[in-house]
């Protein structure tokens, strides 16, 4: 086990997969000579050359489609979208070509490519650079969606995504690239489905994914030390398909649920998890599930407004206390 940063974990995954399989390539804006906006492809251009580490023009729809076309013939492209906000320009190709081609062709053709995008709100980047778009991707049949909450997942999910025969969207977070965590020294593939119990507990389940797992962990600590509430934290690293069984199991144990998401509320992970709870274990509930989410506004620039728009661990604590009639 070595403690490395999230970006280093991604870089290592790229590097190992490119060394293992000559059909793996990386594409995106500024990923080659410049080393990648978040360094996820640092050093790879020098090592693998410009035919496999491809600096693309600023043509999201074009190069995403090109990567998908290459994947039809067995190439395994990792396509980096500099910011998830720009993914709108690539969605036609992601959704209409990659996600649907297996079905439309009756199983003849597949698009085994990986899309990686930096998402989430960083600091004061304004409305066009702060979107959370999980909700858009997770509703698309034929597309897998994963979102790593720590370096180990970042490493293992990317490696598994590259080897998957399905198109996989990896939702990263701009604030997490420098986060440190333990990553196994030996090769490790993370399952693309399921969920992880990040902290075991018995009184309430806090569901999070990506950055909101960390709000949930912080909240669980406060709930434990200050309020004597034992919270279980479930990390939904796979957003599509969601882990119905994992959700059912935890809620059947704790009988209460809070879902924390950085995305805006109407439509999204929170809504979906609550629907699954209704379908799988409604009668296990002692209280109505609650979601903690961003305000429905284009992300404001002003620092105070921005903070007000996005929840954090204190909102999770407040939501739990309310569930227990303590607030």
């Amino acid at each position, binding site marked *: 086990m070595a403690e490395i940063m999230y970006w280093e974990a991604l870089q290592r995954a790229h590097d190992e997969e490119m060394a293992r399989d000559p059909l793996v390539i990386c594409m995106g804006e500024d990923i080659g000579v410049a080393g990648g906006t978040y360094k996820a492809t640092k050093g790879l251009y020098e090592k693998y050359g410009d035919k496999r580490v491809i600096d693309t023009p600023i*043509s999201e729809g*074009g190069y995403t489609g090109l990567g998908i*076309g290459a994947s*039809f*013939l067995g*190439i395994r492209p990792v396509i980096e979208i500099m910011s998830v906000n720009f993914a709108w320009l690539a969605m036609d190709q992601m959704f209409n070509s990659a996600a649907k081609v*297996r079905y*439309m062709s*009756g199983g003849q053709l597949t698009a085994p490519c990986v899309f990686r995008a930096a998402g989430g709100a960083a600091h004061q980047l304004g409305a066009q650079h702060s979107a959370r778009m999980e909700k858009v991707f997770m509703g698309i049949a034929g597309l897998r969606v994963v979102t790593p909450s720590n370096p180990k997942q970042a490493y293992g999910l990317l490696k598994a995504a590259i080897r998957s025969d399905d198109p996989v969207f990896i939702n990263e977070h701009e604030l997490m690239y420098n986060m440190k965590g333990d990553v196994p020294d030996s090769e490790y593939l993370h399952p693309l489905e399921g969920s992880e119990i990040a902290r075991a507990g018995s009184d309430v389940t806090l569901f999070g994914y990506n950055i909101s797992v960390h709000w949930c962990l912080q909240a669980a600590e406060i709930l434990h030390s200050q309020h004597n509430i034992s919270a279980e934290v479930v990390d939904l690293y796979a957003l599509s398909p969601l882990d119905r069984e994992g959700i059912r199991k935890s809620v059947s144990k704790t009988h209460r649920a809070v879902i924390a998401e950085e995305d805006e509320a109407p439509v999204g992970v929170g809504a979906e998890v609550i629907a699954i709870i209704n379908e799988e274990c409604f009668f296990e509930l002692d209280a109505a599930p609650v979601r903690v989410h961003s305000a429905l506004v284009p992300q404001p620039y002003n620092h105070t407004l921005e903070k007000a728009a996005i929840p954090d661990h204190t909102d999770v604590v407040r939501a739990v206390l309310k569930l227990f009639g303590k607030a």
Partner: protein
Amino acid sequence: MTLDDKKRVLREMVLHRRFEERCYQAYIERKIGGFLHLYPGQEACCNGVMEAARPSHDYVITGYRDHIHAIKCGADPKAVMAELYGKATGCSKGRGGSMHIFDVAHRFMGGYALVGGPFPLAAGMAKAIQMKGGDEIAICFLGDAANNQGVFHETLNMSKLWNLPVLFVCENNLYGIGTALDRSTAVHDQYKRVCAYGIESAQCDGQDIDIVYEHAKTAIDYVRSGKGPYFLELMTYRYRGHSMSDSRAYRSREEEEHWKLRDPINILRDRLIAAGELTLEDFQQMERDTDTFIEQDIIAFAEASPEPDVSELEHFVLA
């Protein structure tokens, strides 16, 4: 093309014409649903290019007007018709329909319904060919109006930048649905638009298969020899409406008559008759034989085929 080739291609083109006309009838009978985009009038385009290419070796991709491209690549017309009928025996197992014919075994990589969508997919296949070092090329057949999509320009730029082995064939039938080219597109000659990207291009008559073949051969030799992308514009016309509910109010009957005088099948037929290779009676017999084949083999197969099993609704979503 030898005279024997031409006779074979004439027979194929008759099949392509009659197949599409039979689809029209099946649509009226409600055997075929959804959108149905037919190819009559444009047969020399696909046939001329694919005679110069290597079907089942080169990768072909196109839009929604895709039945004939698939058949020309080697798809079984029975499986194509069964797909139009939505049957389990269809080439896409009833999941695709008219706009999504696939036959990957013959390297027909699909019909796509988003106008312009296949441009970057074709370039991507060319990138894969380049990486693997094969002598295949990628061929992308699309219409004139598709060239107004952003990905057209993005793809041209990348194709030239990376010297990809891709041939773009623009079947310019003068309309995008009901909008005439000169009402949608600032530069009317499509082959001129690619000059901005330094891409080699040509324009030619798309009704005369000999002319299409000669130009396609030049284009394909160029691409296959590693010189990079090529754009070939074929001037053509579709005889039917864009899809099935089209009164063709946007164009004149005179214009249609003019283009019917340049029917690609008649041009080839008359040339073979003049060369003493065929009589009018031979040709009429060819048409009758084709119709019999369509009824007794193709339609009968589609009719007799089972519907997909509803229990398999969710097959083919993920690996």
